């Protein structure tokens, strides 16, 4: 049967690379768009609330009350912008949205603590933005809880109260960017990969060069693989670049094995690039193919991959659909490797999905591509 000819495959790959290098649009798509998307999405999508404007009413005025206020500031979630005489002063400021919350420390706070009694503090919240209020409340709870624990550990109390101890795994500072950036890399690559290759076959049909190629002995698998190779290298470079940028700009940790990430990326890209070639071969028009690639990858990768919306919270029908969204598995892999240093045992399901996706993508690309002029 057929055997792959390295000379022919290389000739196609080299030609594709040369064309890519001379096409500013493709170069921008390959190298600029990932950075742009990473930075824009990285800053825009955040579920964190930082630097909430906090008003402070400290009726106690002791070292203990100041320590609690410092704990709020040190958390990074709150910034004390107003020191008020009494809670009533906060009304107007809260109304006008100049303050998001007010912390009221009653007189006798230090005394109660020292005596081992409950020492209540009050937090006034602007409930107009219920979401922010809820998150601010939970941050405040956590800060107060940690403060209480410090007090206990310093031996100021003899009786250990029962304290809820909330521990957040993998993302101890609860930074949503740590969740977003690895997922974002997966989403970006789903989109870029399919868009890059969606142009490649359609362009050849539009310009009439496909007819010339088709009349040479090049086998369609050589053509597909040859076209895929430069884009695969670009894709791997993009992932490396966005990973490094994610670490530098957003401080995302990379706890897992880089080689595992590279292997998973290679499989995923093969599938996604193959999908792009399939779309390109189906439409034979650059414009249509590009649009189809956007629709086929962008929305599912953004919405149905678990990137933004929890899959477990979706209706059953949508949940079923997510199983065929490749980005879902790739996000699982990137988050797993970045945040948990997850190994093969934990990721093999995703890995197998990647292998299936790569195979299906390549098969679709090869089967859809006919050397014949008319179908």
């Amino acid at each position, binding site marked *: 049967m057929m055997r792959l000819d390295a*000379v022919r495959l290389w*000739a196609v790959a080299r030609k594709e690379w040369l064309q890519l290098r001379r096409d500013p649009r493709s170069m921008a798509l390959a190298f600029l768009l990932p950075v742009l998307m990473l930075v824009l999405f990285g800053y825009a999508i955040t579920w964190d609330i930082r630097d909430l404007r906090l008003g402070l009413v400290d009726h106690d005025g002791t070292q203990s009350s100041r320590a609690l206020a410092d704990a709020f500031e040190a958390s990074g979630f709150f910034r004390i912008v107003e020191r008020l005489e009494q809670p009533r002063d906060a009304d107007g400021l809260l109304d006008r949205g100049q303050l998001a919350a007010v912390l009221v420390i009653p007189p006798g706070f230090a005394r109660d603590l020292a005596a081992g009694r409950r020492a209540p503090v009050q937090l006034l919240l602007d409930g107009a933005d219920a979401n922010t209020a809820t998150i601010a409340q939970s941050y405040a709870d956590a800060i107060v809880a940690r403060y209480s624990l410090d007090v206990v550990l310093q031996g100021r109390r003899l009786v250990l109260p029962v304290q809820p101890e909330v521990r957040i795994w993998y993302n101890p500072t609860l930074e949503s960017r740590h969740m977003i950036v690895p997922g974002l890399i997966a989403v970006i690559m789903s989109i870029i990969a399919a868009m890059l290759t969606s142009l490649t076959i359609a362009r050849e049909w539009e310009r*009439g060069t496909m*007819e010339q190629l088709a009349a*040479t002995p090049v086998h369609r698998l050589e053509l597909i693989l040859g076209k895929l190779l430069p884009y695969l290298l670009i894709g791997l470079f993009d992932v490396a670049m966005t990973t490094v940028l994610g670490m530098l700009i957003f401080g995302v940790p990379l706890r897992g094995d880089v080689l595992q990430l590279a292997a998973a990326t290679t499989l995923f890209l093969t599938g996604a690039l193959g999908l792009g070639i399939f779309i390109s071969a189906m439409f034979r028009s650059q414009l249509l193919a590009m649009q189809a690639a956007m629709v086929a990858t962008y929305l599912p990768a953004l919405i149905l991959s678990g990137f933004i919306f929890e899959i477990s919270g979706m209706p059953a029908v949508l949940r079923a659909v997510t199983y065929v969204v490749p980005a879902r598995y790739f996000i699982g892999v990137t988050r797993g490797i970045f945040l948990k240093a997850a190994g093969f045992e934990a990721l093999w399901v995703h890995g197998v999905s990647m292998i299936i996706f790569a195979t299906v993508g390549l098969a679709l690309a090869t089967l859809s591509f006919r050397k014949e002029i008319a179908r």
Partner: protein
Amino acid sequence: MTEKNAAIEVRELTRRFGSFTAVDRVSFSVRRGEVFGFLGPNGAGKTTTIRMLTGLLRPTSGEGWVAGLEVGRQSAAIRERIGYMSQRFSLYADLTVDENIELFAGLYGVTGELLASRRRWVLAMAGIEGQGGRLAGELPLGWKQRLALGCAVLHEPPILFLDEPTSGVDPVARRAFWDLIDGLAAGGTTVLVSTHYMEEAENCHRLALMNRGRLIALDSPTALRALLDLPILEVATDDAPRAVEALKGVDGVVEAAMFGRALHVLVEDAAGGRAAVAAALAGRGRRVDAIREVPPSLEDVFVALVRREGGVVAG
């Protein structure tokens, strides 16, 4: 002659697109080293036939052999033994001349020393020595087409398919291109070339006249012209389209057709026809500048053959 020693052998080859028959039971045979022409208007089925023979299109029915290999079954093996140049300029405009040569050399498995010598040969043949670093898209059309021919024969194929290779280029560049074709044929390459330029067709050893998917005549240009046994008058007049109308149904006139700015009129005999044409045009108020008898051109033959079949010229 059998399919074993013919370069190309075609029997009853047919291609339908839906209810439209693009190529209708075409049969012919091309000898090794022959320059074989397809002549006909656009839509005659020339391109479709070439695409079937090069494995770009599957025949609906009929059979064919290229270099002894079966069309539609052994496409991959056929592609190793043929060169093909499609209708549109189909090299990569965004690659340089050298890069185009290297690409097609790679696809045809031409490497190393052979590549170096073939590259020199192509650049010399196309007359573009020293232009290897230029983008192919920047070359004048005539150069592009010679480069495309060079890329199609990098692997020195025994059979070459050229689909309207000179469309759009000026007569001088066309002449230069045909010199290359003649050179290749002299070296033993079989060339199947389609064209709608009549004067180009004269260069072919044999010509297949095609109209509406049918092969209506097949012979040497000289023999084809001899098919036309009636005299032809060339008429120079002030308004050729109206003159064609005026000559319809006139006694002694078999057919009148536009020929450039003039008229070609097929008549039953030269002297009687001359009088009849002059009278008919004068009667309709047309000015007649000159009437002279001319030897039949391939276009006259083509028009007459189509009419004899009771058809019309497509395109």
